[in-house]
């Protein structure tokens, strides 16, 4: 049985031009265009024909970029607004966690607000009374429930709003990105409450940017993109596809950024400084380019698993760093080096041909350097890359300090920097499932 059925839903919002925006009743009456002025002259489709079903008792996640129509979809399902085209059918009582505590009156006590808010959400007075203690305990506001709501902190306000909404005990719960309302402990409590909902066979629809939550909690997921359903199905598959797409867009922007700073022939700034002007310790230097330029790194590129140029890599993928190098004059003292730094400036890894035992280095004319990392075992985040050509004593020919950016995605929020290949094994009475995405 389907708890939610969405069929070919299109939602068109009106956009009024400046002239119309300021049109008043007076001008409408004077020109006799009351009705025509109510008609929009420009429209915007937030949803462009979306269909999907949510089977009763399942937890369903909707992911997508900002402006993809997620929240609009949720509002239509909640019954706030009507689709311009198509139908939305929901079976059972719906409660929407969209704006917590909307409708609280600041001047009256938390107690009265709980009653009024509960009734607004569709409970009877008796039902609120029966759940009152539970609501207050859940919000952890036993000591403050008789104080006016205007004296509450924003956290208390949100907690009370959440507690009321979740205790409406709906058949279908709609959640829009509201889990960031409290401290860690409260968030856990909310997640426990969702899990309890799930166990009791209720339907939950979750709109969130927290992909982690989608893969952990949802039975099914939908990816909305520009008002169109791009993919529906297994949450892991949907999230991966979504991440890949986001990575594609990020690749594009990083590409554009890279193109913007495509190393000019005679760049300004610290470039061309004599060796003794160098920062004494390269690891503390800010971004920039130094060196005497007998040897010049004219292009830096990154490539992914199949040799395609990329700036975004999945954790554990191979990565190539490719340098295009030109020696203006023959040199016989040459070392190539590479460094990886995380966003905090911590050096994750640094090496060069000298420390790895090269006996000598020489170069004449053009050449290419490819530095291949077989497994880029880093946690998710942005990383800055240093590349350099310098003498054995460290005097740079061409040193690119923090000039290049890559992004690593893993879809998991681990701590630290290094992500060693690993697995978990459990034996005895331990039951942990769902690992190993």
């Amino acid at each position, binding site marked *: 049985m389907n708890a939610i059925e969405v069929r070919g839903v299109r939602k068109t919002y009106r956009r009024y031009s400046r002239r119309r925006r300021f049109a008043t009743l007076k001008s409408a009456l004077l020109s006799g265009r009351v009705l025509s002025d109510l008609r929009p002259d420009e429209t915007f489709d937030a949803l462009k024909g979306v269909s999907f079903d949510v089977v009763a008792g399942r937890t369903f996640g909707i992911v997508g970029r900002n402006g993809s129509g997620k929240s609009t979809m949720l509002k239509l399902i909640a019954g*706030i607004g009507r689709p311009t085209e198509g139908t939305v059918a929901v079976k059972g009582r719906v409660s929407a966690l969209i704006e917590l505590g909307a409708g609280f009156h600041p001047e009256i006590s938390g107690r*009265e607000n709980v009653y009024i808010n509960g009734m607004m959400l569709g409970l009877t007075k008796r039902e609120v009374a029966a759940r009152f203690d539970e609501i207050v305990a859940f919000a952890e506001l036993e000591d403050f429930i008789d104080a006016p709501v205007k004296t509450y902190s924003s956290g208390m306000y949100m907690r009370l709003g959440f507690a009321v909404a979740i205790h409406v005990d709906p058949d279908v719960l709609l959640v829009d990105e509201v889990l960031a309302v409290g401290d860690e402990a409260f968030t856990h409590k909310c997640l426990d409450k969702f899990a309890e909902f799930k166990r009791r066979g209720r339907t939950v629809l979750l709109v969130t940017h927290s992909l982690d939550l989608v893969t952990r909690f949802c039975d099914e997921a939908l990816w909305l993109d520009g008002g169109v359903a791009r993919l529906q199905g297994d949450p892991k598959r949907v999230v991966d596809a979504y991440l890949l797409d986001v990575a594609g867009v990020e690749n594009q922007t990083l590409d554009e950024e890279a193109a913007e700073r495509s190393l000019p022939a005679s760049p300004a700034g610290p470039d061309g400084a004599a060796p003794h002007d160098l920062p004494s310790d390269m690891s503390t230097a800010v971004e920039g380019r130094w060196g005497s330029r007998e040897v010049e790194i004219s292009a830096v590129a990154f490539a992914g698993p199949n040799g395609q140029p990329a700036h975004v890599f999945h954790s554990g993928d191979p990565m190539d760093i490719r340098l295009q190098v030109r020696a203006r004059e023959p040199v016989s003292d040459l070392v190539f080096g590479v460094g990886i730094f995380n966003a905090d400036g911590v050096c994750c890894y640094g090496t060069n041909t000298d420390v790895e035992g090269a006996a000598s280095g020489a170069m004449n004319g053009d050449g290419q350097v490819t530095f291949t990392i077989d497994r880029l075992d880093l946690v998710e985040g942005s990383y800055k890359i240093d590349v350099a050509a310098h003498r054995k004593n460290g005097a740079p020919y061409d040193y690119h300090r923090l000039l290049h950016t890559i992004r690593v995605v893993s879809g998991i929020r681990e701590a630290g920097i290094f992500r060693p290949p690993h697995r978990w094994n459990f034996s005895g009475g331990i039951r942990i499932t769902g690992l190993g995405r």
Partner: protein
Amino acid sequence: MIRRPAGLRLLAHLHQLFRYRALIQSLVARELEARYRGSVLGFLWSFVNPLLLLLVYTFVFTVVLPAAHPPDLQPFALFMFCGILPWTWFSSSLLEASNVLIAGGNLIRKVLFPAEVLPIVTVLAGLVHFCFGLPILAAFLIYYRVPLVAADLLWFPVILLIQLVFTLGLALLVSALTVHFRDVRDLLANLLTLWFFATPIIYALSQVPGSVRRLLNLNPFTHLAVAYQEVLFRAGPFTQWPWLLAVGLGSLFVLACGYFVFDRLRDTLAEEV
């Protein structure tokens, strides 16, 4: 949520509204409580406000303008008070209703509940305030020994009900229209001033020349005000009841129109608010 014929949908909304009556009740209580929260006199203001108003009019019509009213209407301030009290309910309800959907925009955009609850609550809260003024009125009626006919007093709840229906209809209309045309608010404020003077409240209908009286008879609130004055103030039996019943029928029509317009604009409220 599935598209139904408009008439059926309207009935479904009315039914839903009935289910929310406990909410309306609580919201009215909240409205009254929140209004005087933090003031020293608190709820007493509901009595003190009309009392002060009555004193102001007494001062004006006994000291400043002792001759500006017909001699058979004594005390004239009390006569005016009979009309001003219901008028205050009417005009403040409409003015607040014109703002209530915009002020409650957050609710309408984020919470699923029948939006007509908000203007209804404003009108009912006004009614409660009106009722708080009645003991003051009664006290002065007794003090001045105004001769009341007991049978006439039975009309009082009828007049009240008709005014309630009339105000509700206009409040629904005004609240939904203001969302689309913010100017309704300012327009309404001025219109209400005109309306006040076009209603025999600070003068008696009998003072008005015949040609103008025909015009004033077109004003529904004229008959409400006259009915209040006849029932509460003037001696003799209530003779204007055919007019009152006509206004009653008209009020039902106004309420039906108001609710119909509100229902038609309902879906646009969340977007335009």
